């Protein structure tokens, strides 16, 4: 997290109204944000519309980005995820990830961060996720990466929605304890 990050510089210039820097920021990040949105909402036409909205929002909020508080990609991915999740919640549960998609996704998460970047934070989070019971860990990952709602998780794991809510909250508490331990 630093103001020297190249994307942070582009964001700072965009905040000052520099459209060319914003274009460069778009070129550097749009594939990631589109992939993020598409994984949650599945529909390419909708994803394109949401991506446009997300970049307009990034432009509008660029001034509020604080490079000492978060990384540019973390900040932008959050905006994209929230927009896609809001849209899915608005469209009601039946249009979010199907049972089959969630099953396929669950199979992917053997050791999600194992072969990836071994930066210290990633390694740490991976270790802490491993400390969760398998189903709870899957629930966290399906929610974060696929936008799974409590209802779709309840269906996937054949548990009441209230149980899922308890799982999620306890898992978050456990993760936080582990990360700070």
């Amino acid at each position, binding site marked *: 997290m630093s103001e020297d990050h190249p994307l942070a510089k582009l964001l700072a210039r965009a905040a000052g109204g520099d459209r060319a820097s914003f274009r460069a920021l778009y070129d550097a990040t749009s594939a990631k944000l589109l992939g993020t949105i598409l994984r949650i909402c599945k529909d390419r036409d909708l994803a394109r519309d949401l991506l446009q909205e997300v970049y307009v929002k990034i432009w509008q909020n660029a001034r509020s980005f604080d490079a000492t508080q978060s990384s540019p990609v*973390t900040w932008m991915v959050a905006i994209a995820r929230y927009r896609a999740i809001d849209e899915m919640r608005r469209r009601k549960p039946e249009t979010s990830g199907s049972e089959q998609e969630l099953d396929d996704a669950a199979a992917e998460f053997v050791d*999600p961060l194992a072969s990836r970047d071994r930066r210290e934070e990633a390694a740490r989070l991976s270790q802490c996720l491993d400390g969760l019971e398998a189903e709870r860990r899957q629930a966290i990952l399906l*929610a974060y990466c696929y936008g799974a709602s409590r209802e779709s998780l309840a269906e996937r794991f054949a548990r009441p929605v209230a149980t899922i809510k308890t799982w*999620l909250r306890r898992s978050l508490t456990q993760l936080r304890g582990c990360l700070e331990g």
Partner: protein
Amino acid sequence: MSTPDDLDALAGEYVLGTLDLVERRAVDARRSREPLLDAAIRGWEDRLAPLNELLPEATLEADLFPSISAAIDRLGADQGIAHLNRRIRRWQWAAGLASAAAVVLAVGLGASMLLTRTAQTELVALLAKDATSPAFVVSVDLASRQLTVLPSAVEPPAGKAYELWLVNARYEAPRSLGLISPSAATRSDRLASYSDEVIASSTLAVSLEPDGGSPTGKPTGPVVFSGRFVHPKI
């Protein structure tokens, strides 16, 4: 009143994405006024950020930037509004701190209502008994005057119905905006004849009425959710 643990759990679920729409809107509205909640959200975004590496990349066939740029140009015409928005956000920030102090002093505080803006022309109000349990999200598209009310886990007593009212000093009595469903979205054009100024300066109230609605055209039962708009018209 929420404890620090509740706040952190709420922030965690917000970042995870598992809150329902009403809860998400409530967090969005509170976030701009509650520095602690905002910090808790940023904390979770940071903690879970390594998971972003699992998110794939995807490319578009066509370059989207020209249409993004055009959308930004359209915003440019509203620069004065953007400036006003920033002033309002600062004001909300101060109001948030003030209200946090007020909550400490008055735990038994009654209904509250938060208002945020999700798009250029949309006003959103959360009708709640307290800050953590919103009962209805009311949104108004100022362009079309469409009123949408989304319920969340509320149930009127048997034989009773919820009726929404617009309360404004300009009118002697509350104006009915119709019955609202406790289980499904209610959409109506009952705001069609009101100006932006009236809508933004009104209080919305929900009263308990007999099935079929108030027989007199005025509220006859207790007001169960209400609050003032805390936000001027954009």
